């Protein structure tokens, strides 16, 4: 499998201070990669740097092209959809409008309509809430909406920033199940940042461990799962 996203020696941060110090990882074409780490390890920063939302330096190859100096808008248009932390809901727009915004760069209106139907089959709750102002949705519904909005782009790579954050276990199960479906049926590669290490390692084929801005470990998920230190620090048994 060739890499869809390949990052090497990535430095990034806010203001004068770097948060990431030479991070490297990859997402295989059609694969699922997860980046684990504690609070403050730099997970969110990593995703923001990949998408060009913050100052960064290093090599970022996406779909065969270097995106290290491209603007967020252009990177997104290449097929990289980012579900940001905090979900990034357009609170005053309706649920349906949120989905339309997700597909705003697409020109095939028929495909968009079909994809919207597909989102409603993935997330029936969203169909019930179709005309409702998105800011009034529950946290779980907003997370579903954020993922659906990102999928409306018909991306090659779906980037998710802690989709389980603050949600009930049932909802988290749902969301992870749909991520697997999307990966298998739509061939969407996934880059997932998570605190819930157990679930993330179950879903992903490749995993990396981020500590204070550096990758300290990386490899196939099973390998990390069986690793003594990872188990103690992140899985808690």
């Amino acid at each position, binding site marked *: 499998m060739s890499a869809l996203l390949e990052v090497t020696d990535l430095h990034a941060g806010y203001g004068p201070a770097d948060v990431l110090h030479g991070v490297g990882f990859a997402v295989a074409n059609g694969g699922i990669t997860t980046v684990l780490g504690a609070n403050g390890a730099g997970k969110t920063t990593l995703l923001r740097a990949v998408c060009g939302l913050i100052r960064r330096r290093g090599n970022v190859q996406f779909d065969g092209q270097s995106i290290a100096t491209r603007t967020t808008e252009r990177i997104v248009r290449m097929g990289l959809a980012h579900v*940001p932390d905090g979900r990034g*809901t357009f609170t005053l727009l309706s649920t349906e409008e949120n989905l339309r915004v997700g597909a705003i760069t697409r020109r095939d209106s028929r495909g968009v309509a079909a994809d919207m139907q597909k989102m409603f089959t993935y997330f029936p709750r969203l169909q019930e809430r179709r005309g409702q102002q998105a800011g009034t949705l529950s946290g779980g519904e907003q997370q579903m909406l954020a993922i659906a909005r990102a999928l409306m782009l018909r991306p090659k790579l779906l980037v998710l920033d802690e989709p389980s954050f603050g949600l009930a276990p049932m909802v988290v199960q749902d969301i992870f199940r749909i991520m697997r479906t999307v990966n298998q049926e739509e061939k969407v590669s996934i880059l997932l940042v998570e605190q819930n290490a157990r679930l993330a390692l179950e879903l992903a084929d490749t995993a990396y461990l981020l500590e204070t801005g550096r990758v300290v470990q990386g490899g196939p998920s099973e390998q990390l799962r069986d690793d003594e230190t990872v188990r103690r620090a992140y899985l808690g048994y």
Partner: protein
Amino acid sequence: MDAFLHQVLSGLATGGIYAALALALVMIYQSTHHINFAQGEMAMFSTYIAWSFIDAGFPYWVAFVLTVLASLLIGIVIERVVIRPVEHAPVLSVVIVFIALLVILNSTAGWIFSYTIKTFPSPFDWRGLQNSYLSPHEIGSIGVTLMVLLVLYGFFRFTSLGLAMRAAAQNPVSSRLVGIRVGWMLALGWGLAAAIGAIAGMMIAPVIYLDPNMMSGVMLYAFAAALLGGIDNPFGAVLGGFIVGVVENIAGAYIVGTELKLSVALVLIVGVLLFRPSGLFGRRYVVRV
């Protein structure tokens, strides 16, 4: 009774113009959280452009369309050249830029077109519209305002560019993450606001005549309208415009007299800020600490 009805209806006619200007203010406020103090001067300058086209012999409606297009362009250029560099500046710096823009536009207009008052034609002079309640121009101006509101509503509600603009105003980061060019959306917002202002200017100029200071009073009412309706609610601003227009007329005719009419706007502004800062339909922001 007839006189009263006349006051109300003609209040609706000027109210429509306040509504349009208030809407232009709201559009810029929603996306940047700044009040464009130069909105009125931009409208005044556009009206002079229209006057130049008409003076050069263009038919009225051709001049009208050319002016709207030119204003759209000028609005975009102003945003890109003047406003963009202070995007992240403290609010006071931005206010000073707005005031500078106001003064520059005002004196440039005086310099190019002189400070002598000019008449501005009305395209609505059909005899068939003659009646005791409203002048033909007032009827036409209500029609144009309603048309503008309808077109804007349709644009923002049903087109994908309109949706992109609303999204960009609400959540710039999320908008970038779906591929919207947020910077251009802001510029386009300025362009639209300038175009709306141009139409309002062309509709009010036949009534109050054309001179570089023509908008100072009108803008005061527009500010009052925007505040009354809620500075972040387009529908509120429009309704506020019509309310202010009617209240202004009635107060002028029966309560304070025409000389003190402008103070009605001030009373409204102070009243709203004191008793209902979010306006009639504005969103109330509660900050958790």
